[in-house]
């Protein structure tokens, strides 16, 4: 076993373990622990990229994903301010067990196929000509602004759509200032709880449903 292989198994195993920890209890029970597991998994992935000679990608993985994106994730989780009863594990049902078995079957199948198909695969010799700049910043930048210019520009549209969409769904009220106060959005958790408490006068600790449009229900009685 070469050093590269040993490193690969350490990094790959670490990435898989961190991903599993993200979803499974005990760490997976709390969103913030899941987020931290995800960061750990990103670091292992960055190591794998570096192992594949994609140094820039590895660095970007840490700076952009483990750094910026994950900080945003954790901020969002903190801002959501989840109460303990909202993070409780759901009950295990027959359907979920069946889904788990099927998922395990699919994962097993994929692993088997990958294992069978990759038997005998050979490593690329990066010493041969044509590979001198492989994975370098210059090479990646060159690709990005020549043969991948169109997708690169399209991504900007995608990001714009995502930003506009997020603002629309998350904004407290879309109505303009001189319009009357709209009913609370179901995304607006804090507002929704206040609303419920003022209506009922009591504190329903276990009741997390936001009030919703009365129309849908009122209309069903027509």
């Amino acid at each position: 076993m070469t050093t590269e292989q040993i490193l690969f198994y350490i990094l790959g195993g670490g990435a898989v373990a961190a991903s599993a920890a993200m979803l499974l209890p005990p760490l997976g029970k709390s969103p913030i622990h899941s987020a931290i597991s995800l960061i750990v998994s990103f670091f292992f992935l960055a190591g794998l990229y570096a192992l594949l000679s994609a140094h820039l990608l590895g660095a970007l993985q840490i700076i952009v994903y483990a750094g910026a994106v994950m900080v945003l994730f954790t901020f969002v989780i903190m801002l959501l301010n989840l109460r303990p009863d909202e993070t409780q594990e759901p009950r295990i049902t027959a359907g979920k067990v069946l889904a788990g078995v099927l998922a395990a079957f699919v994962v097993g199948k994929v692993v088997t196929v990958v294992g069978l198909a990759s038997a005998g695969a050979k490593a690329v010799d990066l010493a041969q000509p044509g590979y001198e700049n492989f994975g370098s910043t210059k090479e990646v930048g060159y690709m990005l602004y020549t043969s991948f210019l169109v997708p690169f520009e399209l991504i900007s549209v995608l990001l714009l759509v995502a930003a506009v969409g997020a603002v629309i769904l998350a904004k407290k009220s879309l109505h303009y200032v001189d319009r009357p106060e709209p009913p609370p959005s179901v995304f607006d958790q804090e507002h929704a709880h206040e609303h419920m408490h003022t209506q009922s006068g009591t504190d329903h600790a276990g009741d997390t449903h936001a009030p919703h449009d009365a129309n849908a229900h009122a209309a069903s009685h027509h």
Partner: protein
Amino acid sequence: MLHDIALLSPMIILLFGALFTLVVDPFLPTATPRRFWGPFGALISGAAVLATAALWVSGNHEMQTPAFAAHLSASRLSLFFTALTAVCALLTHLSSPAFMDEQDHGFGEFYALLHFAAFGMAVMVAAESLITLFIGLEIMSLSVYVLAAFKRTSLASVEAGLKYFIMGSVASAMLLYGMAFLYGIAGGTTYVEIQRALVVPKPGLDLWLGLAVVLTMGAFLFKVAAVPFHMWAPDAYEGAPTPVAGFMSAGVKAAAFGALLKVLYAALAGGAIDSLHLSMPKMLATFAVVTMTVGNIAALRQTNAKRILGFSAIAHAGYLLLGCVAWVPDGGLGDHYHVAGAAVPFYLVGYALASLAVFAALSVVGKGGQELTGQAQLAGLGRRYPLAGAVLTLGLLSLAGVPPTLGFFGKLELLHEVLRAGDQYVPHAVLLVLNSVVAAYYYLRITVWVYMKPEGKVEREYIRDRSLTWSMSLAALAILCVGILPSRLMRMAAFAGGAVRPQVARAHLDHQLEVAGLKPPVVKAAATEAVLPR
């Protein structure tokens, strides 16, 4: 360069519409009603359709700059589907303003997102590489998720958006996973590179290819709402604002099938895939039959028209999927218009127009924030609002495949093609016919609600709006006129279908590649050999 940009003009027009709406809307006085963005959007979409038509007529469909040619095409197939999705956007722009205002959510961003979704669809169907396809798909999907959840005060709408979002994300992840394997096999992401890598079967390729194909096709089954990935559709259609549901069932389906055809017959068309051909068409055909049956049977017991149409959309995905599978290439462009490959594009036009007509007509009951479209809401529609009742009925008849509507010829053409594809598809064709008969029951049931059920004591109010009337009339007229004189559209669909068939496509694309002086980079080619076992 300029030539290529001219070929992209439909997309540029749609993107301009989106950006213009986004930029101008905040500067308008707050008191100004935003419903004028609807007709404006229809004009923009109409301009995109005209640009597509001009490109179609001009006949020069090849990108010249390598950077463009590798990722986007303006082939007849792309143009056909771009025009179709732009028409969907046009009709949705016309049918939305009154409905969204009544639901108290008529904001400028709604129309901007409609433009963005149409732009994403145009990118998807024009994509010549997996990466462009994926970005187009995501632009479309993100816009449509938000459109589905746009009525934020309604739990149903938010549920629709959330379900669609979660299911769609899983599908995207699957697609990416499949694409990663395809990239590993081909060493490149463009359809041409994939096709070249699959020209000759190599030992050990089967397993990788099988995995890649299963994952990619699974993701497409998700997007078109086919069994076993169909469960999100009825909830999403039921909860989404009615015009958006129409756009989802028409535009999204058209774009997804356009992209699926290109992936199936432009990318995965090499000789290596033939070893899988023993199982892949059979598998997809089975899924197609199960999809149509499940969709139709489940629709029988529903009580909400939008939910019925959600299941009907599943059934139609089954019909179309069978059309895609049975699209066996026969080589060479036939000059007769009855060549293979016309059925799916042709059927999609009929289906999209009928869906848009039906959902536009259903949206008239959305007065005062009303969201339900059950028997109670629809009873008496035929008497009190004859136009809406008539358009609804016409659309439903077209979906059921009753002559002389466009839906009838679509089914006829589809059936014809399935039967021509080979004897192994005879049972599938029989099931398709039986399914159409079953479907007629629930389509006609909605008609019964509209015309024959007691109206109740309350005098119901309907949305009556000029642009909505335009939308309904245009869709209904198109269904009738093209249904009576279908040959021109059928010829166009045959041209579109012909543009993708493997032999033709391969020769065409190889030639294009040579002309463009585009070769797979050395690094990629060597990487391919390393991945493949010897």
